């Protein structure tokens, strides 16, 4: 047996004979198992639920009776963002961005949150996810196990005996690293199981196992940091204290600071704030419900000229429908310009936040994790764009029906009496203009491309910490 494997085996023997170490590992293992099962169950339910809700919303829309087409514009529709398969491990931004949107004419509504079915969720316990355990708790376990890996030998005097056997310090360090690596490999098993489960839910193998690889590199980087402290420092208590501080810094302080710093660097107004700012500009566009609004005079002239008629009553199409379509297009341009600007600013904030991965591997892994899982901000933005395209599509299709299938005179007299109201309708078959909407995560290649920078940072962390361990171990003194 090679000396590296032998050292690793003896380290394991020590750990297994230590009740504290076994208890700590068991607690974390149980926590991971329970959280993985609960999160997988919750996400699978949510996924099924949102797909069902999407289908139900479409069926409800299609099932509407004959109506005035503009009533259907306001009847609206829903777009749901089902969690992608890897959300069973990494729910990502789901909890803060909302997962469904009510789509209607003249508005881009804010994404809503799913209603909670269990009161216990209101306590925030659902926030404990497998991803957060891997990002926060496993490094702590590695600190507990590894802070004294080298120091214990130094403090007990066995380091001298080991080195006196002719074993180089680097081999001793590699043996200790192998022991930690085995711990990491063992704790990768639940993640591998979750990744395999996500594949059965439709996830691509490449994405699922890239996520596993990313976390493996992350935990190896932490293992190297822990080992480096154990080689470089001279007292066990100091090593533990320094590593706990590094953990607090990387896992709590830097992320908190990074959020504030990215918000301060890029001032992105929220949805509500930008809606308020936009209102003034929106008013200039005219009221699409009022075909006589002066804002539409030029349009009226153009349309009359196009159809070579003198009055809107002579038009072969319903002028109100034309105005509604025109107004919707103008308004949507305005809404989209604000939405795109807001998303651009949010994406900039997200990029700045990701750069803080250079100070904290926890930030790097969380960014990579969300990107690979398809639960990142970019995916949410795509959901917003696609749901907006769906909204604009069905609203304009209804406006076209309004213009083409409903007579202008009937439309204008719709409020005269009940009979007039009933005449101002189009056939329910017109509601089939609504496109089917099934939001799906990006392809694995695209998600990996987004995660590339963060994965690179993680690798740099591993190489830097591993390099420090090897250099320090080569120069190890008693």
């Amino acid at each position, binding site marked *: *047996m090679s*000396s590296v494997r*032998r*050292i690793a085996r*003896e380290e394991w*023997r*020590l750990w297994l*004979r*230590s009740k504290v170490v076994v208890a700590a590992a068991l607690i974390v293992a149980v926590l991971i198992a329970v959280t993985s099962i609960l999160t997988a169950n919750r996400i699978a339910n949510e996924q099924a639920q949102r797909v069902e809700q999407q289908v139900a919303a479409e069926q409800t829309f299609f099932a509407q009776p004959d109506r005035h087409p503009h009533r259907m514009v306001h009847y609206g529709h829903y777009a749901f963002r089902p969690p992608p398969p890897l959300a069973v491990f990494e729910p990502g931004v789901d909890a803060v961005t909302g997962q469904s949107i009510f789509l209607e004419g003249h508005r881009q509504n804010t994404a809503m949150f799913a209603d909670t079915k269990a009161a216990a969720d209101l306590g925030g316990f659902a926030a404990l996810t497998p991803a957060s355990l891997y990002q926060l708790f496993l490094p702590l376990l590695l600190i507990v196990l590894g802070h004294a890996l080298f120091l214990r030998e130094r403090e*007990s*005097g*066995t380091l*001298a*005996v*080991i*080195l*006196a*056997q*002719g*074993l*180089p310090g680097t081999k001793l360090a590699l043996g200790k690293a192998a022991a930690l690596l085995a711990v990491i490999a063992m704790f990768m098993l639940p993640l591998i199981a979750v990744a395999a489960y996500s594949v059965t839910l439709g996830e691509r193998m490449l994405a699922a196992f890239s996520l596993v690889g990313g976390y493996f590199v992350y935990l190896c980087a932490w293992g190297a940091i822990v080992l480096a402290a154990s080689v470089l420092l001279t007292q066990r208590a100091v090593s533990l204290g320094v590593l706990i501080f590094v953990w607090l810094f990387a896992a709590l302080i830097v992320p908190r600071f990074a959020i504030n710093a990215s918000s301060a660097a890029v001032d992105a107004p929220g949805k509500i704030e930008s809606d308020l700012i936009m209102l003034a500009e929106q008013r200039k566009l005219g009221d699409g419900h009022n075909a006589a609004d002066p804002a539409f005079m030029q349009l009226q002239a153009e349309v009359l000229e196009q159809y070579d008629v003198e009055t809107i009553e002579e038009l072969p199409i319903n002028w109100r429908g034309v105005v509604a379509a025109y107004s919707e297009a103008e308004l949507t341009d305005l809404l989209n310009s604000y939405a795109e600007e807001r998303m651009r600013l949010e994406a900039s904030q997200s990029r700045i936040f990701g750069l803080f991965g250079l100070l904290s591997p926890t930030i790097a892994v969380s960014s990579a994790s969300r990107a690979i899982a398809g639960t990142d901000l970019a995916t949410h933005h795509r959901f917003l764009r696609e749901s907006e395209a769906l909204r604009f599509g069905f609203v304009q299709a209804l406006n076209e029906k309004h213009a083409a299938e409903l007579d202008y005179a009937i439309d204008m007299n719709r409020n005269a009496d009940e009979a007039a109201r009933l005449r101002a309708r189009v056939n329910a078959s017109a509601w089939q203009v609504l496109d089917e909407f099934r939001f799906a995560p990006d392809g694995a290649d695209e998600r990996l491309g987004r995660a590339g920078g963060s994965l690179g940072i993680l690798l740099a962390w591993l190489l830097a910490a591993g390099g420090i361990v090897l250099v320090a171990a080569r120069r190890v*003194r*008693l």
Partner: protein
Amino acid sequence: MTSPLEAKSLSLVREGNAVLDGVSFTVARGEIFALLGGNGAGKSSTLLTFLGFLKPSGGEVLVNGQSVTGDVAAARGAIAYLPEAASLYGHMTAYENLDYFLDLAGKPAGRADLDAALDRVALPAEARTRRLRSYSKGMRQKTAIALALLRETPILLLDEPTSGLDPVAIDEFHDLVKALAGGGQTVLMVTHDVYGACQVADRVGLLRGGKLVGSFSAANGERIDTETVHAAFAERQAA
């Protein structure tokens, strides 16, 4: 002929303090050389420079004629080292400790060899499967000595080897060291036990304040006179 161990004008400065100052000696093959000195005299530091754990500030140390600084691995491969604290693993049994350290040294041994070495140091058979945390200091010391024996290296470095041993065990240990030297092993031991040094060593050097201030040899097959050395030791200590 090359001496297995040689210190040439060895100086060592640690944290601004001169620990060793121009120490020179050689230890011949099969010779037992004891370095005597009080606390802080530089005895253990001398051993650690031969193992490459401490780098000389001046002069050099040679193992089998080769500079330790130039090839630490070769030096450590030729030396079995018995530290003062008999530092072994408390969570392992004697067998497990020996098996582990011999594996690291690249000299794995079977259970029979381990038993033979443990028999030589008189560690009770019933204790060998117990974890070392239940051992007395003497029993731990015996296990560490067994490890040094099992290495079968041409050179033995012993740091206060009889510390913690009872008088009978000390006599047995001295006999063992003499037998090893008789078999050609070179022994450098450091101790502050004047009587023990004189009992076992062929030559005794007096170390004080990092300097080698005296040397005594056995003549005509007799042991070094304890009283002479003791007097010199006391005189040098008082000086």
